[in-house]
């Protein structure tokens, strides 16, 4: 097992990883920008290194400084968290080359899955269901038109290097395709430095269902059930839950099997998430593999009892899987609300000092956050400041706990999305589990 791990991240996920390391008896090194010198994740670690100015590109994404920090502190491994360098194949490769273990999949896994069109190809070749779409990257407008006419409108154009809604365009008819193609390419290039785009059938009211997988170095793969992440605003997840109200035991087995096969096809290692679209007729289609720990991983932990960060670390250290598929038991229901430092109506970021912070507690409530009274939410990074996670014997109890915990949560000095979450939980359709990825837009419009 590793003796010392550097956490190449900040905020709640850095603290989450530090906690797991402490429980495993591993020493920790925090890195931080000048803006985060007083942050909780820094104080929670055994050692700390300032790696740059507030701008993420010059600090948390600064590969030379991050690796120098790893070298001068003598760590065995680096945990990248999510975001920043977590899906940077080059970074994973450099780590491997200098003998520092990258806690995550191989650099080849990251590179392969990072090319969304390529990933679809590999999965489709195995005979697994992928969203109908262009076979690979689109070379031209004509190429796009041909593909779109074959699968039928509406279609969605996506960046091959994409994620988070950037470089995406929905096209309803052939006449709009040319302009959308060019716009998506331009946005893809400016955002990801890669203008490659592909297209897929666009589903009208799909659910976003993802499956958590674990894979060891011997190629054994298991899945830990699904997460329903349909509550999204501009492709940013806001509320996640497991099990999905739309997935029964039979569908769970089927979609789990496909997820396991998909990552086996890619010789995938460590933890990952396979994302699917689930249409109204309960057909599901592979979308992509996320080669990192996900923000919403805690809900899977709550129902399985399995600590995913510890599993990541154990798998990276070369341990075989300690759990067999038949040992995975899903207990009850869990839900997560992402609390963002944003105006809950206009979604304008609301950085500033938290004058009072008091997190809810008690049975069935978990809070993952690096915030505290007096902490300053800086404007340089993601606006997510806390994850509120509930667990109950069933969806009803889990929702009731979430409601009372949202009522208890006190964050003063900045605006947060807590009131929005409270409203979502009061919505009758949400309460019945009748949601899709279009739910939130309609909810906000009404």
């Amino acid at each position: 097992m590793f003796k010392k791990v550097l956490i190449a991240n900040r905020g709640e996920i850095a603290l989450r990883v530090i906690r797991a390391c402490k429980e495993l008896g591993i020493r920790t090194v925090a890195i931080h920008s000048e803006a985060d010198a007083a942050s909780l994740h820094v104080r929670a670690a055994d050692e700390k290194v300032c790696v740059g100015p507030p701008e993420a590109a010059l600090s948390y994404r600064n590969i030379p400084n991050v690796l120098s920090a790893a070298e001068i502190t003598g760590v065995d491994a680096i945990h990248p968290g999510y975001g920043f360098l977590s899906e940077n194949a080059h970074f994973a490769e450099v780590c491997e080359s200098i003998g520092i273990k990258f806690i995550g999949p191989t650099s080849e896994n990251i590179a392969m899955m990072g090319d969304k069109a390529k990933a679809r190809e590999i999965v489709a070749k195995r005979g697994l269901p992928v969203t109908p779409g262009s076979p690979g990257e689109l070379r031209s407008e004509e190429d796009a038109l041909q593909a779109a006419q074959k699968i039928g409108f509406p279609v969605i154009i996506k960046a091959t290097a994409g994620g988070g809604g950037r470089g995406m365009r929905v096209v309803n008819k052939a006449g709009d395709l040319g302009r959308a193609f060019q716009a998506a390419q331009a946005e893809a290039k400016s955002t990801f430095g890669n203008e490659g785009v592909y297209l897929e059938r666009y589903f009208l009211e799909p659910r976003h269902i993802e499956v958590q997988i674990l894979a060891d170095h011997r190629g054994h793969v298991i899945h830990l059930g699904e997460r329903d992440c349909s509550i999204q605003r501009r492709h940013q997840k806001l509320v996640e839950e497991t099990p999905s109200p739309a997935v029964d035991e039979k569908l769970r087995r089927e979609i789990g099997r496909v997820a396991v096969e998909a990552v086996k096809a890619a010789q995938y290692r460590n933890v990952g998430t396979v994302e699917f679209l689930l249409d109204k007729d309960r057909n599901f289609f592979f979308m992509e593999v996320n080669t990192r720990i996900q923000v919403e991983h805690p809900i899977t932990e709550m129902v399985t009892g399995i600590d995913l960060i510890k599993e990541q670390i154990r798998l990276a250290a070369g341990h075989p899987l300690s759990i067999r598929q038949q040992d995975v038991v899903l207990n009850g229901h869990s839900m997560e609300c992402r609390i963002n430092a944003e105006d809950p109506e206009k979604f304008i970021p609301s950085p500033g000092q938290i004058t009072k912070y008091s997190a809810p507690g008690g049975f069935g409530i978990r809070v993952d956050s690096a915030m505290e009274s007096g902490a300053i939410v800086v404007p340089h990074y993601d606006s997510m400041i806390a994850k509120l996670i509930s667990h109950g014997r069933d969806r009803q109890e889990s929702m009731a706990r979430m409601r009372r915990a949202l009522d208890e949560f006190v964050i003063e000095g900045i605006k947060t999305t807590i009131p929005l979450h409270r409203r979502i939980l009061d919505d009758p359709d949400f309460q019945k589990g009748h949601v899709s990825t279009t739910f939130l837009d309609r909810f906000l419009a009404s």
Partner: protein
Amino acid sequence: MSTRRSARSKKKTRPLILPNAFGGPEPETLLTGGQTKQIQDLIDLLRRNNLTELELERQGVRIRVRLEVGVKPVTASVQESVPSTPQQTSHPATTTGPSAEETTAMVTIASPIVGTFYRSPSPDADPYVEEGDFVKKGQVLCIVEAMKLMNEIESEVDGRIVKILAESTKSVEYGQALFLIDPKATP
């Protein structure tokens, strides 16, 4: 150009020494406008009432204003105990910063990168500079090794090296103060 072996350099071959390509930021101390106003209000209150002392503590901020008997000036002190003061953990090469008086009108040369600090180009060579030396803007002061690369750190000003704040062969973090230079001193 010169080669040098660091503590973890078994795999290293021929490291490069790079010229300084970084600009060091200057640390600032801040007092918010609101706080200044509040202190002024307290001083006014003190003066109006010929008080000797006035103390106010609220949510971690304690303000004490004292007027010495028979003395004109007013003493004001603000003590802020922000709940999130960084706890000093064992980080590599912790350096206590110089005190307020020392830094007045001084220029601090900070490390622009994370790495290992070396005062000389090679183990058997003389240090680039010593305390008391006069340096010119652009003159190399030290090397910070990172990722097998030797980065030369240059002086940003003409002046005298008042203090060398880091220890050779020890690691330094981004923004860590390395040298204190008095730009007003002349040889």
